[in-house]
């Protein structure tokens, strides 16, 4: 069975942020949440390298492991998704993830975290595929 992964050639990445913007555009992601970021090391010096990072869709996803309400699920392609209706915004997944993939729009009561949001590998979420409900919560579903 195939596992879906992102591959970024760090020799070619020029930190143009097209990937970041395309993702924000496609999924109408609010300010403050960046499903994808470009990470640069040795900024401004010989040896400067950049790489585009989003959720790694880990085989044994730490976010899923620690979630107290078990809102994560993994598709047959290895895409790690979650259910925002079950998510309680506790933030454990954020602490567990070494890549900073889970993010919070801070739209909860009194400015608390709100529902966790992260890269879905453009595979939407548990709502009906390509429905407006799915789009509103998880962004576009380009895999279905």
């Amino acid at each position, binding site marked *: *069975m*195939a596992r879906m992964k992102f591959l970024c050639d760090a020799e*070619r990445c*020029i*930190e*143009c*942020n*097209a*990937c*970041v*913007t*395309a993702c*924000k*555009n*496609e999924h109408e992601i*609010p*300010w*403050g949440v*960046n499903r994808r970021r470009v990470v640069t090391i040795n*900024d*401004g*010096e*010989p040896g*400067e*390298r950049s790489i585009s990072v989003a959720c790694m869709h880990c085989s044994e996803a730490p976010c899923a492991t620690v979630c107290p309400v078990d809102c994560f*699920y*993994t*598709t*047959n*392609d290895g895409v790690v998704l979650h*259910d*925002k*209706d*079950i998510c309680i915004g506790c933030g454990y997944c954020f602490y567990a993830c070494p890549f900073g993939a889970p993010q919070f*729009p*801070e*739209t*909860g009561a009194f400015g608390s975290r*709100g*529902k966790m949001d992260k890269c879905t590998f453009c*595979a*939407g*979420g*548990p*709502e*009906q*595929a*390509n*429905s*407006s*409900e*799915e*789009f*509103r*919560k998880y962004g*576009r*579903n*380009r*895999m*279905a």
Partner: protein
Amino acid sequence: MKLIRTATEPVAQPAKEASGSAIDRRTFLKRSGITIGGAAAATALAPTMMRKAHAASIPSGGEGTKTVRTVCTHCSVGCGINAEVNNGVWVGQEPAFDHPFNLGAHCAKGASVREHGHGERRLKYPTKLVGGKWVRISWEEAINEIGDQMLQIREQSSPDSVYWLGSAKFNNEQSYLFRKFYALWGSNNGDHQARICHSTTVAGVANTWGYGAMTNSYNDIHNSKAMLVIGGNPAEAHPVSLVHLMRAKERNNAPLIVIDPRFTRTAAHADLYLKIRPGSDVAIIWGMMWHIFQNGWEDKEFIHQRVWGMDDIKKEVANWTPDVTYDVTGVREELVYQAAKMMADNRPSTFIWCMGGTQHTIGNNNTRAYCNFQLALGNMGKSGGGTNIFRGHDNVQGATDFCILSHSLPGYYGLSAGSWKHWSRVWDLDYEWVKGRFDPDSYEESKGKPVPAMNTKGIPVSRWIDGVLEDKANIAQKDNIRAMVMWGHAPNSQSRGLEQKKAFEKLDLLVVIDPYPTVSAVMHDRTDGVYLLPAATQFETYGSVTASNRSLQWRDKVIDPMFESLPDHTIMYKLASKLGFGNELTKHIKVENDEPLIEDITHEFNKGMWTIGYTGQSPERMKKQQANWGTFNITTLKAEGGPCDGEYYGLPWPCWGTPEMGHPGTPNLYDPSKPVADGGLCFRARFGVERNGESLLANGSYPVGSEIKDGYPQFDHKLLKQLGWWDDLTDDEKSAADGKNWKTDLSGGIQRVAIAHGCAPFGNAKARSVVWTFPDPVPVHREALYTNRRDLVEKYPTYEDRKSHYRLPTRYASIQKTDYSKDYPLILTSGRLVEYEGGGDESRANPWLAELQQDMFAEIHPADANNNGIRDGQMVWVEGAEGAKVKVKAMVTRRVAPGVVFMPFHFGGHLEGVDLRSKYPEGADPYVLGESANTAMTYGYDSVTQMQETKCSLCRISVA
């Protein structure tokens, strides 16, 4: 990677499946989804992100979605975009994977263009400043009030007192119409961004070999065996061009050499990096050429056949020995030698430059030095070689070609009586009537005779503030500029911000026409006399646009104009009607609901733009190419089969002759390896046939298939008759061509016949290394006006002050003679960021881009930071040498050399530490504001074009 959408059959099924189940991927994904409970997740957005509730559903590529082909509006690469529109709403976008320029790639800005269809921070309706408050008015009121005031100023002070600043973001049809507009208004006081961007390129390059444009293309770089980028950072300014540079790197092992004061993101991908002192471009080029001549690496055959004056260059270059070069540029001999050798060993090699080279008082020297480098190596007129000049805005090439400039008419015809007569014929207007629109008086002389205002260069955008503030006795026109129209042009891309503020305040009338208010709305303290008119973006209209490689592309309309905005050409017609020349403006252009028909405008310029071959690109041919953009080869840009078989993508100019003649366009300029009929060319015979007893015509070099196997002058009726080709013309062509030349024959017959005999209509000459009409015929190094190398000022001084240059007194030596370096010891330079564009209000109003660069900053080397007690992230004052200061965040980095401070120029909305957000009309302030780098940038103007010197000035830094 190709993203393929498959069909969807949503079926309600439990969301979770145990891993290891037997179903396959497609089945699982099809069966995903059940609405769990009724609780909709709270999607309350932060206050700055509140927007009206969406209508029920946003179909993702579903029923009723149509795909509209357009082109990104952010830079001159011209990336193809497939915009997805449903029910008039822009719901999605994909980069065009089959588009030859971007091959499915975008940069941050291109990937964000759909936000124009949201338009949260757009200027939504005509607005007027009354008693310090923004008041909404109607279009009718606006046009009437503005028109009345302008007519009054015209009456009192002459038409020259209204300044028409146009835009590199007009499409070609709007550019042409705008040039015609202010011509018929009766003034040469019009200009656009090219002045402050590549004006020195166009002047320097055109005066070397005929045309001042990018000679090859981004795609042609696939054939380069080495690449040199100086004063350019394409990884941020033209990110998609890196797709093409990397092909050369990966497939040809082509080394990339970067010469820049900063270790830019482009330098990070370079094989060789030279860190030069800002302002020492001529020195580094001559230093490299010293090694080329020393080692005999020059292409002697090429020079013998196609170059005049290289010996004079050799003499100057002999002065630039390695130690002299090191002293002036800061680059060690080994690196200079290596760079020269890399380019010489790996030919054809290409040469790329941008603002780092152009924005200097000696900009025209820099660009000509670059040209001479490529001429010496014989890299011109070859695929993989060339001077690949990366233009800036999406249509700065088009706007330049249509000459929204103060010194020429469309097609670079100039401002002589002959040029006005040519265009009067094309416009079908009486020349005397056109002449009568101008101030009849003369304020300048040429060869002892007075020259009327109509034939003298107008004030350029870089100096418009002096047109307002200078004592009118010193300006070569009747009165000061009293009304300013900032049409699609930001103010914070021009230097001397504090003086600009004063100029804004002194005006009688300020009109801003733009999709956004721009910094022009807020940087001054005016309380009245300001109008903001909402223009539609290029996604809300249609027409052609010219990419940097001279290819023309057709954009289709994605959505209707948002809010109350109107397309620029509609606004032009409305204003022209009010000002009394609406009928003349659109004599042969259909107008419906005040909107001039775009295709009629294209047809009209097809009839007049003979000099640079904008005559063959009819709307019909361009639309056909757009529909078939996937059929073009991505290296040669030639269509292989299909409906456009044999044509080059974009019919790159010169596309000679009439559309019926069907010329395929010229993908690489000056390339004699192909017949002219198939896009081949030679250097233009523009400068006469002889100089100092030497022939300027090409020597035994000519395009393949030429019946004249040598150089020849430009074609006119006389030459055709001499050659015995006159009777090849049809009778209609003969009557049009008699007494005319290749530029003024409206039938295109002279061009057709010349090409049929394998000849270039503009002649076949040598390039000239020495431009005898320029202040420095042989390009030389001169120190910047504000320099901290006082020891070099004596040996390489700037020019003498000039009493009148483009109508204004222009200072040089009187500024350089003062030593500012004690008080302002650091070099100040400026440049671009990938997330923003130009003055920045448009891109900072796009939340997806603005989030990525939220703070204006200055790059400061750790040594300078430590010397001034500055830590990374602290707020600091950067004070320019003329006393203006900006409050920005310190970014302490080794990207810049010690002694050099860099600031990006895209921010605006703060002024000397004061936040001006409250001065924007409500709801139209960009998300991110910041200081304008150019507030601190100083006086300094190119000796030929009045380009501003924004790449090397002086400053000091202190903790804020």
